[in-house]
């Protein structure tokens, strides 16, 4: 073969003349992509993708409630120009323009907002959507908050992408301190068997490797479904009887009382938690959104699992 070597080709691709030619070609063919602020830099997101992020992103679209909460907690809510239909915390978030659901965002609505950065999460956004948005020329930075540590890392990384490293570091440190304080208050307490109800009917509970199972563990409990191989298995009521939970905790999303949600469960008198009335509702958003309110989730769990230790 006599053609130029790959190295030569790369060098040529990087040359200013080549770049100008490409820019001209792109502009002339009308396929130009969203212009970016100067001083853009390549960063690696939590999936290992290379993303060109503007030095100071000013028009950010968030594709998940946990991301919206993180941006607001870092004091950068003003830079959000679009959020999902489910982003309802803090209340200011509800006044932002909407781009559709988490699993069904409207690409057109997103493009119309002319974002210079889109923040997504591998835990609720589809990989196909991320690919498609990136192929439309948008900078899409993906976080991957799967457990306690990666939630903290996600906050730190969003801080870095927003140019708010110090604020993020501080927030992460204070979350760690709060978590440590709760764990210390629980030192020596007996581990209680906990059934966490993600969804009551059909019963869906957290399995192995989920953030919820980990938080229950840290809150002095033992998830009775924590060994299930699937992350969110659908289980029968018989499982509840067989696993003998001492606490039943229901993640509520503002849909009626715990009694309404667990209608029919009063039959399960052989279960300690039911017999002794140790059935509690907690704000599901705290546990189901892997974001800055994770410590509140931990405190809520500790409070119902060990009320004598955590007031």
């Amino acid at each position: 073969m006599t053609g130029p070597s790959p190295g030569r080709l790369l060098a040529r691709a990087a040359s200013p003349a080549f770049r100008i030619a490409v820019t001209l070609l792109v502009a002339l063919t009308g396929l130009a992509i969203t212009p970016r602020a100067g001083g853009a830099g390549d960063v690696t997101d939590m999936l290992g993708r290379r993303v060109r992020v503007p030095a100071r992103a000013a028009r950010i679209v968030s594709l998940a409630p946990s991301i919206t909460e993180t941006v607001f907690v870092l004091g950068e809510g003003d830079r959000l120009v679009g959020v999902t239909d489910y982003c309802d915390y803090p209340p200011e978030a509800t006044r932002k323009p909407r781009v559709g659901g988490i699993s069904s965002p409207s690409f057109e609505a997103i493009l119309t907002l002319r974002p210079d950065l889109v923040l997504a999460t591998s835990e609720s956004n589809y990989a196909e959507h991320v690919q498609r948005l990136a192929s439309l020329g948008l900078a899409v930075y993906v976080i991957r908050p799967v457990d306690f540590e990666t939630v903290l890392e996600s906050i730190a990384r969003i801080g870095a992408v927003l140019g708010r490293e110090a604020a993020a570091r501080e927030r992460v440190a204070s979350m760690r301190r709060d978590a440590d304080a709760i764990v210390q208050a629980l030192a020596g307490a007996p581990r209680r068997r906990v059934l966490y109800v993600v969804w009551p009917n059909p019963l869906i509970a957290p399995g192995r490797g989920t953030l919820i199972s980990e938080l229950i563990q840290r809150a002095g409990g033992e998830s009775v479904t924590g060994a299930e191989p699937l992350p969110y298995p659908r289980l029968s009521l018989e499982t509840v009887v067989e696993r003998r939970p001492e606490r039943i905790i229901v993640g509520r999303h503002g849909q009626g009382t715990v009694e309404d949600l667990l209608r029919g469960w009063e039959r399960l008198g052989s279960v300690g938690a039911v017999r002794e009335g140790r059935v509690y509702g907690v704000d599901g958003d705290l546990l189901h959104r892997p974001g800055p309110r994770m410590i509140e989730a931990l405190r809520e769990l500790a409070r119902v699992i060990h009320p004598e230790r955590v007031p």
Partner: protein
Amino acid sequence: MISRRRVGVTSAVIAGGLAVAGLLGLATGPAPIGPGDVAAALVGRARSDLAATVVLELRLPRVLLAALAGGGLAVAGAAFQALTRNPLADPAVLGVAGGAALGAVLGHLWGLEGSLAATVGVSAAAFAGALIASIAVYLIAASGGWLPVQTLLLAGVITGLFFSAVITLVVSLVDFAQLGGILHWLMGSLGIVGYRAIGVIAVGTAVGSAMVYTQARALNLLALGEESALQLGVEAERVKRIVFVAASLLTGVIVAQTGPIGFVGLIVPHGVRLALGADNRLLLPVAAGAGAAFLVLADALARLVVQPAELPVGVVTAFCGAPFFVYLLRTRLRRRTP
């Protein structure tokens, strides 16, 4: 015989309908882009980056996909109806779409995502699923080289239910994160497809439709009964094999990209047959055009009704299709009973 004039009028109506539907599809969406800007973007003189990206990268592929899928499904439906001499046959009723959906789901789970090879791979998996379903239905229903109508329908319904149960099994056994967009795709969606997938689907529908069309005359003769067709030199078994493979190819490549979309394959050929009669040489191309216009229009409506959110396009095809089908049944019934 159908008059030349009637053919001309019908073709003109369908071409006009396709054009109107296409324009509506290109002009519909949450981004504030006027008709003039849409036209400018289409001829490469977009007045803004936003208009260029939205029209050329989001709306145009969508309209093209809807046209290809609608046309292909209508041809597949017409082919199945002609082959089985049964007005109720279509890829969904015969369980072929279910087989294609299962193949595509397995292809997705296999990690076939992203590259051109992956798009072809998922399409091939869906084609394989559709073919397996076709063969299964055929073997279950065939008795002595003849396909009794009732047995065929039963075989199709059973095969379809079985495949959808397998999909439910797969979905409930697999980690939610791994499922990704599958749940959404299973509702029927034209949303996130780019030009690469359009290329694959265009080749697939072109090959499949051409294969069916080469058998148009033979299908006409088969309609007279296999005995008479045989006397006229038609090899019934060969025709059946070709048409089954072609219709499975059409169903497979389309379902792989759009998910199962009902009603197009069932009602479009019927409407055309009522207007122009059952000559497949005419029916097949006209049904392709009508199917294309119908699905493009349905997708535009799906995006329009609950803006900025979207309805699954299958909801719209069913809402338009079911009443139309009832109307056809009733009027034809009345015509036959004096």
